[in-house]
C-alpha cells in the first residue's frame, strides 16, 4: 500500500463547486504543484479556504486569475490586489476571519467539534450576526467549524504511509487542514521509507493523508521555482 501518486493523477479528485482547504502563509508552505495541477482541470466555482490568495503572482493567485474561484475564506487578502478589485466589483465573495479563528475553526472541522467560543473579534464588525455568550463573566462569540471537500497541503517529507513532517514556518495552516478535508493531498519535497521518520516527531499521522505527490518546486533565493 502506497499513497504516492503522480502529480497529474490528482486532477480527478476535484470537482466544480468544491470547498478546498489550501495550506500556506504567504507562499511559505503553499502546495504550488497541486495548485498548478488544478489549473489544468475543467473545474470552476471553487470556494478556497486559505490565509491569503497566493502572493507574487504565484500559488492561489494563478487559480484566481484563471477565474476558478467564486469565494475565498481567509484572514488577509489585502496583499492580493486583483482579488480586492474583483471583490469591489462584486465578482468575488470574501469571508474574512481573524487568523486565529480561521486556524481554530479548521482544527475543529477535523476534530469532530461543531463549533467553539472565542474572545477574538468580540464587539467588532467581524462579530456581526454571530451569537454572543458570556462565559465566566467574559464575552465570547460562536464560530462554526470549517471543513473541506479536499485539503491540499505542503510538507517537507512524507513516508510511503503518508506520515508528514514540516519545515520551519512552512508548517502554518497545513497540519490542521490535513485533518479537515474529505480527501487530503500532500505535496512534499522528499519521500522517505516507512520508519525513516521519528515517531515522536511526526506532525501529521498517516491516517489523515490520502495521496502524496512529489513537489516540482524548489527554493531559489527569495523565490520558489519549478525544478522540472
Amino acid at each position, binding site marked *: 500500500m502506497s499513497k504516492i501518486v503522480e502529480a497529474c493523477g490528482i486532477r480527478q479528485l476535484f470537482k466544480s463547486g468544491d470547498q478546498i482547504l489550501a495550506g500556506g502563509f504567504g507562499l511559505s508552505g503553499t502546495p504550488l504543484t497541486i495548485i498548478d495541477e488544478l489549473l489544468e482541470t475543467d473545474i470552476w466555482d471553487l470556494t478556497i479556504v486559505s490565509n491569503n490568495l497566493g502572493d507574487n503572482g504565484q500559488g492561489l493567485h494563478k487559480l484566481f486569475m484563471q477565474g476558478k474561484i467564486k469565494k475565498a475564506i481567509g484572514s488577509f487578502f489585502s496583499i492580493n490586489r486583483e482579488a480586492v478589485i474583483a471583490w469591489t466589483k462584486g465578482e468575488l465573495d470574501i469571508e474574512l476571519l*481573524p487568523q486565529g479563528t480561521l*486556524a481554530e475553526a479548521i482544527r475543529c472541522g477535523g476534530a469532530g467539534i461543531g463549533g467553539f467560543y472565542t474572545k477574538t473579534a*468580540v464587539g467588532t464588525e467581524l462579530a456581526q450576526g454571530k451569537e454572543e455568550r458570556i462565559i465566566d463573566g467574559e464575552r465570547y462569540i460562536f464560530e462554526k467549524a470549517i471543513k473541506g471537500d479536499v485539503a491540499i497541503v505542503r510538507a517537507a517529507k512524507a513516508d510511503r504511509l503518508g506520515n508528514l513532517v514540516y519545515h520551519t514556518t512552512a508548517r*502554518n495552516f*497545513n497540519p490542521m487542514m490535513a485533518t479537515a478535508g474529505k480527501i487530503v493531498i500532500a505535496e512534499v519535497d522528499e519521500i522517505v521509507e516507512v520508519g525513516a521518520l521519528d515517531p515522536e516527531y511526526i506532525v501529521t499521522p498517516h491516517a489523515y493523508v490520502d495521496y502524496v505527490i512529489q513537489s516540482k518546486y524548489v527554493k531559489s*533565493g527569495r523565490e520558489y521555482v519549478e525544478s522540472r
Partner: protein
Amino acid sequence: MSQDKRHVIAKRIAQELENGQVVNLGVGIPTLVASYLDEKEVYLQTENGLLGMGPSPSEDELDIDLINAGKEPVTYLRGASFFNSADSFALIRGGHVDVAVLGTLQVDVYGEIANWAVPNQPILGVGGAMDLVAGAKKVIVAATLFTKDGESKLVPQLTYKTSGIKRVDLFVSDYAVFTFPPDGVKVVEMLEDVTIEELSEKVGFPLEYLNPHLQTSSR
C-alpha cells in the same frame, strides 16, 4: 514620517520589556523594537508559528520558508520552537504572550484601538490583529501621534472600526507615552519637549499627567 520618530518610539517601548517575556511584535514600528532589546532576554513570537525569532538572515542564511507574520525572511535562535497556526493562536488567545506591540490607526481615550481596517479601502485583511488585542496579557501600541494630515490618532471616540473591546495598556507615540486607567487617558511621560497644555491643544482635548506631580512641574 521621519525615521527618527519611529526609532524614538521603538526605543521607548523596548524599555517596557522585561527579561523572560514572550513578546509579539507587529509590522512597522513594532518590528523596530527588536533593535533596542540589547542584552534583554526577550523571546519573540511570530503568529505564523515560531517562538524564538531571530534577526533578518544574511543572504547565505536565507530560507524563504522561514518568515515572520509580515512575510519577511527571519532566522531562529537557540531554544526556539516551531508550531502550527492553531497552536500559535492558542498561545496568543490563551494569554501566554506577555506583551504584544502593535501599530494602530486610532486609540480612544479609554484605550480601545482601531488597527485593522484602513478607512476608504476595501476591508479584506485582519490577520492576527484581533487575536493579539484580545489575547495578549499586555498590549502596547506604537504609532506617531498624528497622521500625515495632522490628525490626532488619540481620539475621544473611535471613528474607525474597532479591533476589539479589550483596552490597551500603553500607547507610545513620538510625543508622549499614554496609559489608560478606568477614568480615561493619562500622560505617563513626554517624549517631545512640549507642555501638556500644548499637547492638549494639538490633540484637541485636555490631557492630564498620570502623576500629578509632573503636571505642575512640566517644562
